[in-house]
């Protein structure tokens, strides 16, 4: 009986494992292998170069630029969607009129493809007739304000991050809202009877009890930030001249535009290690939470 069950487990898992193995594990291991070569991506002949690619990474100013931008993006991911999502969730949870409609509206962007979000924001940032510059003209009275948000190295990355955060906020909000419904209402009622003001209830009861939701939101946000590629590709293409490059984009450029597949693989290994350490921290936190709430 036992044996039979094990057998069926293996059989039923096999298709998923096969697909996962062929499309995730194998390429992953392959990119580890290529990171030690000078392969250009299509020539059948290539050489082993040992740790050269990794040594090069740490000399490459473009890598420093990409890792700095990735760090900026991660910090922004920790702040923007998390705080905005939390704020919206707390606000909508008070039972404002029409809160259901607002919930749907705020959630809507997450249903859009990143490419569409990128295109909408390209129009918002358009220098001559975009919504943002037109609004700035209207508010400040400046005539012909035509700052090119996506074409200036000083603002390109920030502009993309804002667009990305706009999309992510809805997801954070929904997770926080789910977390809020899990907070027993008698706790808040008891506090209210004791005359605890609303803001102290939020600070001392609601926020601590939202910890599980926060862990999920933060982890998703950071992982999504590391994956942030499509919206960048559409909005700036990593430009102007690398100024908005992230690690993921830098890897793509080196591999597919400059045909340095070996070097690109080395960058992807570094990116993988960063993502792995974040995921490990995430699972540890989840386990701790599990211990607390079990």
């Amino acid at each position, binding site marked *: 009986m036992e044996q039979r069950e094990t057998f069926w487990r293996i059989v039923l898992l096999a298709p998923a494992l096969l697909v996962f193995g062929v499309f995730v594990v194998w390429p992953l291991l392959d990119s580890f292998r290529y990171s030690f070569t000078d392969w250009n991506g299509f020539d059948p002949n290539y050489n082993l170069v040992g740790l050269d690619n990794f040594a090069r990474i740490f000399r490459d100013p473009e890598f420093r630029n990409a890792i700095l931008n990735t760090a900026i993006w991660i910090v922004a991911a920790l702040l923007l969607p998390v705080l905005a999502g939390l704020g919206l969730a707390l606000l909508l949870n008070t039972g404002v009129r029409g809160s259901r409609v607002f919930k749907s509206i705020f959630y809507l962007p997450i249903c859009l493809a990143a490419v569409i979000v990128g295109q909408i924001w390209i129009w918002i940032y358009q220098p001559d007739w975009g919504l943002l510059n037109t609004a700035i003209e209207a508010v400040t009275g400046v005539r012909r304000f035509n700052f090119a948000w996506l074409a200036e190295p000083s603002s390109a990355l920030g502009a993309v991050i804002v667009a990305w955060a706009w999309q992510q906020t809805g997801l954070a909000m929904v997770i926080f809202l789910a977390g809020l419904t899990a907070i027993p209402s008698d706790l808040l009622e008891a506090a209210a009877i004791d005359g605890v003001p609303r803001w102290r209830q939020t600070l001392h009861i609601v926020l601590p009890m939202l910890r599980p939701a926060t862990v999920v939101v933060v982890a998703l946000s950071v992982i999504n930030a590391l994956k942030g590629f499509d919206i960048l590709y559409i909005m700036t293409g990593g*430009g102007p001249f690398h100024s908005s490059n992230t690690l993921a984009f830098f890897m793509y450029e080196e591999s597919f535009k400059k045909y340095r597949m070996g070097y690109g693989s080395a960058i992807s290994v570094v990116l993988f290690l960063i993502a792995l350490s974040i995921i490990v921290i995430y699972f540890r936190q989840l386990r701790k939470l599990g211990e607390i709430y079990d």
Partner: protein
Amino acid sequence: MKPWHLMKATLGATALVAPLMLGSASAEDAVSVSHYFTGELGQKGITEIFTEFTDKTGIAVADSPIGHEDFKTGILVRAAGNSLPDVFSYWAGARTQFVVDAGNIMDIGDMWSADKLDDVVAKSVADGATLYNGKRYLVPFGYHYAGMFYNPKVMTDAGITTMPKTWDDLLAACKTLKDKGIDPIALGSKNRWPAQFWFDYLLLRTAGPDYRAKLMSGAASYTDAEVKKAMGLWKDLVDAGCFAANSNANDWTDASDQVARGDAAMTLMGTWITGYWNGQGLQPGTDYDFFEFPMVAEGVPNAVVGPVDGWLIAANAKNAEGAKKLVAWLASDPAVQAKWAQIQGALSANVKVDASTYTPVMRRALKTVADADAFAFNYDLATPPPVAEVGLNMFAEFMNDSSNIDALMDKTQAAAADAFKQ
């Protein structure tokens, strides 16, 4: 059956069936073709051309078009997987050199002489675009010429009746237009490559084609006085306010629209702009026209810049005979060539195409190329792709801030030297 045996049988069956499911179902004798002519008109035109070929020869064509930018990566991935289509479109120059060097492409010297392609392909194009490492690989399909396309009404209204012939003329025209409140030059360098023509022409007009060839192959340096001189002239133009604002925020079509609307007077672009404008109902000669990039220094050969689109045959083509027939026919049939040139706003590489099939503007472009001393590929086709990445970024950076050419050239040379080492 024991469970373990059942599992083995299941896995075994899966292993047998999987390749069948993944394998393509194309007919055995079809010539597989991939190309980047995916614009509405281009795709329709090429489908008609392939159908005509099948009707004539009975050889089927399995067509798989891929968008321009994706094609650049996609075709190399297919080369890496040893699964190139029998025939694919490609840009002559450094990109073709790249795949030829990797051993992926078929030498078509025998076909070239058997089909007498020397008699139909313009010699300047044949010499520059089809030979690699001394052997014949590419068959040209069409080519383009980059010139200064302008809005005649805007120029006339500003009082400019003779188009600039020298650098000083251009600076003067720029001032006249600015005084009238018109942006003299539109440039859409968001995707970087449209800026390259400025570098190409300025370098060719000052240092000449031989020096430029050296720079493109890595034998000269971006820190040379020749390069700095060209960049300095470009900077003069930027400093004089000749370029419309925010070029890095615009695409080439945005720049074309600025000229078509009359917000800007001219743009340096390839002849495909005529296809774009014709599609919008603009009349060649009245709504738009072009002049040659002005002469800058005396005694420098007159070079023209542009890309050549061609066809390559994979070294391991499954239907090599069919592939050769198709490619030879695409280049040598004057009706096909005339039709294609018209659709793409391109110039035919076939000398037998009747000049009357062109618009007046394209006829002049054809004559300009014929009268030139040399035909040079534009930057991103003249230098190896990894180096082109470096240069294209430099052009965009320059358009953003042109204040320190020396530092920019030092940085570019360091990155270019590194890219050449590959």
